[in-house]
């Protein structure tokens, strides 16, 4: 029963924290750029504003145009809720493993891309095509990371992996570190951060995700923004859960849960700062360089898996 309760709490938690996370990243970047920057709470205000505005849709926009943001938002919300954040006692934890998680992300992307194509503008097409291309390269890299983890923990179930890592199953290991780097690269690509894409740009042919959602406004745009924020949160908590799971609560004692919550918040904050730091230090690269970036990620993932196998064989 507690599982259901914690599950609901987690759903609420991720939804509540996602905008804040984005806000913090922006704030960090602003400060590093020497600007004051907007308050970390700005994303909440933006979302509220978008919700209040009257949405405008192109003529000839099909029902799918309106359905796809909703679908993407819901799927990402669900996915974000599946990753153990502060406790492992989650009702749905058993019903989705890493592969299912990747599939959920793919489904969300599928929906968004179709939405981008729906109105039939050049920008929508550009965005959809490029986004799918990047995903086509990011997903294998992601799966390679999963392969490595599965080899280490003997399972693709997040709970198992978390338990295994906490149980000290792995020391500092080259394959794990390679996997971490690969996962971070994938996260950057998937979230359309610099150097792959610039979430802040508009009217640049280099933009990918923004081009895809150009036609959206009002509540649909709010859903999309929200989905983006959830995705970022998802990846950060995934990294946290897999590579730094020590704070996660394994039994339902209040203090354990407290530790879990605080640890989770700390991990997210750390991740946000790190991301901001990373983004300001490097420059955006051309779209077709991105394939090399992701190819690198894939290679790292493959190396990680092979190192792992060699470690087992010898």
């Amino acid at each position, binding site marked *: 029963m507690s599982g259901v309760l914690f599950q609901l709490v987690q759903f609420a938690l991720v939804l509540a924290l996602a905008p804040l996370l984005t806000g913090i990243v922006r704030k960090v970047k602003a400060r590093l750029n020497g600007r004051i920057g907007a308050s970390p709470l700005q994303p909440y205000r933006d979302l509220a504003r978008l919700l209040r505005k009257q949405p405008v849709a192109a003529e000839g926009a099909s029902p799918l145009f309106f359905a796809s943001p909703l679908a993407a938002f819901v799927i990402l919300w669900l996915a974000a809720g599946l990753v153990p954040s502060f406790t492992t006692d989650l009702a749905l934890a058993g019903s989705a493993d890493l592969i299912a998680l990747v599939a959920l992300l793919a489904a969300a992307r599928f929906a968004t891309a179709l939405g981008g194509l729906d109105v039939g503008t050049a920008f929508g097409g550009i965005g959809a095509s490029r986004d799918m291309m990047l995903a086509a390269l990011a997903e294998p890299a992601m799966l*390679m990371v999963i392969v490595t983890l599965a080899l280490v923990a003997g399972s693709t179930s997040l709970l198992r992996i978390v338990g295994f890592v906490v149980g000290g199953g792995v020391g500092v290991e080259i394959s794990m570190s390679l996997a971490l780097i690969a996962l971070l690269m994938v996260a950057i690509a998937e979230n359309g951060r610099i150097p792959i894409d610039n979430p802040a740009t508009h009217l640049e042919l280099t933009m990918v995700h923004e081009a895809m959602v150009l036609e959206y406004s009002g509540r649909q745009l709010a859903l999309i923004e929200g989905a983006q924020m959830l995705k970022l949160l998802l990846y950060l908590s995934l990294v946290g859960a897999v590579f730094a799971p020590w704070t996660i609560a394994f039994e339902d004692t209040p203090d354990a849960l407290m530790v879990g919550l605080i640890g989770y918040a700390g991990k997210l904050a750390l991740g946000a700062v790190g991301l901001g730091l990373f983004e300001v230090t490097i420059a955006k690269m051309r779209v077709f360089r991105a394939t090399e970036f992701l190819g690198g990620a894939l290679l790292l993932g493959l190396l990680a898996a092979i190192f792992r196998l060699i470690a087992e064989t010898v």
Partner: protein
Amino acid sequence: MLALIVGALGALLALGVAGLAGARHASIGRSIYGVAATVSAGLAVLGASRLTSGAADETLILPIGLPWLGCHLRLDALSAFFLVVVHAPASAIGAFAAGYVTHEPAQPRILPAYPVFVAAMTAVLIADDAYAFLLAWELMSLASWVLVLAHHEESDTRSAAWLYLVIATLGTVCLMAALGVLAGGAGDYAFASLRGARPAPLAGALVALLALLGAGSKAGLMPLHAWLPPAHAAAPTPVSALMSGVMTKVALYGLVRILFDLAGPLPWGWGAAIAMVGGASAVLGLLYALLQTDIKRLLAYSTVENIGIAAIGIGLALGFRASGQSALAALALTAGLLHALNHALFKSLLFLGTGALAAATGTRDLERLGGLIGRMPALALAMLAGAAAIAGLPPFNGFVSEWLTFQAILASPPAAQASLRLGLPLLGVLLALAAALAAVCFVRAFGIAFLGRARSPQAAAAHAPEAALVWPPLALGAACLLLGLVPALGIALSDPVLRALGVPAFAGALVGPAIQLGDNGAGYNAIGLAVAAGLLGLLTVVALHRLSPLTERRGAPWDCGFPDADPATQYTGSSFSQPLRRVFGPLFAVRERVDMPAPLERRAAGFAVSLRDPLWIALYRPVARLVEMLAGRLNVVQFLTIRRYLSLTFGVLVLLMVLVVIGA
């Protein structure tokens, strides 16, 4: 039960004869297809009930075929499973064909062969001796050859049909040899006695190779896939659906039957090899699919991909069984079998949908379609389901089998052979790449065809196809969703097969409708996720209703402030795949030609992309050229003088005498 199936075969053949007679009137044609569909539905139900009831194997010997052998028939779990795989889609296809009669002028050439084709595929499944098996197998090729030739006026059709039949016969001959090795030249071709045969290692390897060539050529595994795209594109829609969705599964049946059932234990290496071939087919198939603009060709290449995925499962199962890990073998084989079933469903769906679409718009060319979702929402819904299923997205059935395949790959490192282990990450990459590219491919296919704005007058003027063409795809889509939500259904069908093949039942426990891999806790609970998603969705909708009451306003697309009314400014299919074409360009011989008029030159600039299957250039063209060259060289023998012919006689005589001298 077996007698019923034989009766059904008779009925189908009778339908073929009726087709000869009544090809003229649409009504007769409709009823023939209707009956065929009904028979198929019956057979599907029959197979399912056999699997669930767990009845004993039935055998039957008909007094035809080889005089000393008779025609052995047998219905075991494997046959029953593939009976479902074949006839569940076939019934929908038959129903579609009935509605399609008015759109297909070539009925006189299709009607007689169609039921024969279905009958032949069924016969392959229940044949229990090498002769009957191969007779049915080649008859299947022959019937489909006639069907492919339905639109025989186009020369492309003829060359496609020729290539198809030649490759198919190559396969048949290979299977002849493979089964011959097992039968050992003793003349007892009954599968029962083939099972007993334990071929020597070398002979076993030969059997495996020949079986892979024979079944692989029919299934469309690389590099013997060349016939698939042209044949599917040339054939009438119901036929391409049958060939791509169903016949390729019969080929997989042949592979499983020979490698798992008839041939004795094979070294694990063969399993690994098959898996690798499968992985290569999966990725390359999709890369080619991505570049096609003819939807049928696109679907054909994606068939190559899916067969590849199924082959990965089967190959892994073979390897595991060889290295004595029966639990893993069960997992992998389940994955392979389920993927065969799933692909049969959604590939038939997609082909039928394409047929309906083509019937409504008069074209299958992506670049001439667009914006159809508004005009044919029901069809769009079905195709969306099909696209999601084939892209391996939850909650559809495609994901289930791909998930299982992944689990099989990930679970394998306990496998004894180090080399197999080190190959596995590569296999994983291939499968992952295939899954990701599938998403791209079908976002493109669906998005370009159904979304956006109409790219041609036909598409703009298109009206929804009649209901008879829409509900079969919808039904198949429902089936895909059902199997996706309740994987237990599919596994319940495949489990008896495992037991029949001496592999232990599926290792993973089935917690209600969900899969839970017992040993390593990985699990997939589609229902649970669906319910959760539903609740969250409801919550979101309600919240939105509260927070943003305003109804949306319609306006011109913003398009970054420069809206352009011309649909030509949209992304096209080729532009959509351009990035990947850039990335993977070397893998397929792509030639992009930009023809830019000089300044002040008054003509339109041009851009042309041409791509050719590099395997064709590497493999098929040399063979063709060799035959041509030899034929040319030998042709002089037709034009010698009598004296030279006599010299030939003289030469042969002397040669033979010398041979006798040497021999003595």
